[in-house]
């Protein structure tokens, strides 16, 4: 969810916006693709940890630290999913015929309404595909999550981490089951994404 909203928002900004620092923003938002997940997790841990300004602010507002909680797992998974949503959303938004947006502008629609009633609806298939891809990525994240949220069964243990645990513990049946679930979800998402991007043309 977090990654969907942020990804589509940033995607729109990067597709339409012409502002200084655009290249830097794009590079930073794409970092999670190339960084080793544990490195990403390490930096998140440093930025959001109990001793960092951000971490402290969170603790003051919410009352508990962010790292090593389910919230932390969500943030870590979202950050690693963000570039996938962002890139797909951006491509979808850029593929909308700019003349349609122009004629909507000429008809008196404000920039907000052009975005909400023209650009985003026309890009919707690509946006859904991006969100699905991001969801699958977030579900499958291991490295970043384990660094930020730890591995506390029932609280911050995500499925990929549970697979790892089960194998380590020699519980082959459990590992096979979890792996099967994750595998099926991944395949389903890919099929859905392919369908969407094909019929979008």
């Amino acid at each position: 969810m977090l990654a969907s909203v942020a990804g589509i928002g940033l995607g729109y900004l990067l597709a339409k916006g012409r502002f200084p620092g655009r290249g830097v923003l794009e590079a930073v938002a794409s970092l999670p693709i190339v960084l080793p997940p544990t490195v990403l997790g390490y930096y998140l841990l440093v930025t959001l940890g109990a001793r960092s300004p951000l971490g402290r602010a969170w603790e003051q507002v919410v009352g508990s630290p962010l790292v090593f909680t389910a919230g932390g797992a969500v943030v870590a998974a979202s950050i690693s999913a963000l570039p996938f949503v962002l890139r797909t959303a951006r491509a979808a938004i850029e593929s909308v015929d700019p003349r349609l947006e122009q004629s909507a502008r000429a008809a008196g629609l404000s920039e907000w309404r052009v975005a909400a009633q023209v650009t985003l609806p026309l890009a919707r298939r690509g946006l859904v595909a991006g969100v699905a891809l991001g969801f699958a990525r977030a579900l499958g994240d291991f490295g970043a999550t384990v660094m930020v949220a730890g591995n506390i069964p029932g609280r911050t243990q995500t499925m990929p981490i549970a697979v790892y645990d089960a194998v380590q513990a020699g519980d082959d049946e459990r590992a096979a089951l979890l792996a099967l679930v994750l595998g099926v979800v991944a395949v389903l998402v890919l099929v859905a994404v392919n369908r969407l991007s094909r019929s979008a043309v």
Partner: protein
Amino acid sequence: MSTLTVDVVVRAGETQVAAAFWAAPGITVLSGPSGAGKSLTLAAVAGLLRPVAGRIELDGTVLAAPAAGVHVPTQQRRVGVVFQDGLLLPHRSVLDNVALAVRTGSRAERREQARAWLARVDAAGLADARPTRLSGGERQRVALARALAGAPRLLLLDEPLSALDAPTRSRLRRLVRDLVDETGVIALFVSHDATEVDELADRIVRYEPGRTVATEERQARGSR
């Protein structure tokens, strides 16, 4: 009487045009070879392009003057635009397309006005249709209704009939003539079709590649 004054240099990529003319209520045809910069001129008047020099004025209000940093956004210029291929929003119904352009009133009132405009262009039966199902002529009728629904001060037509077959073109020429006369709008009509120029123009602005060369007034012609 309301007047549009254009004296601008507009550039987009490799193409540049220096356009100078004025227009009054009625149809001013911008005529000349393709690539001469007619559509660029229209885009600058619509506010979709910023001219690099000069100014555009409507009734004493400056719409664009790059030297003074003036650029009134398209939304506030009160223009209605029709392009060659209509450019209706494919994901909304015909009625929605027209209603989106109505600027005042509640949602219900806007839809009511949109219906009235569709009826005016003989497209009342298409209200619930999807724009992708329309024929070329139907699409342009709806596009005309949408362009006029916002009570524009300027109606900008960029080769609106050139994709249509001859009988449809002739019917729509008559419709454009009637709509402009009824609303008293200043219409700029980009065309390189001799029949269109001859039949529609109250004033002709002649283009050569890259610039306007002459403006011809045509005397009020009898009823057609």
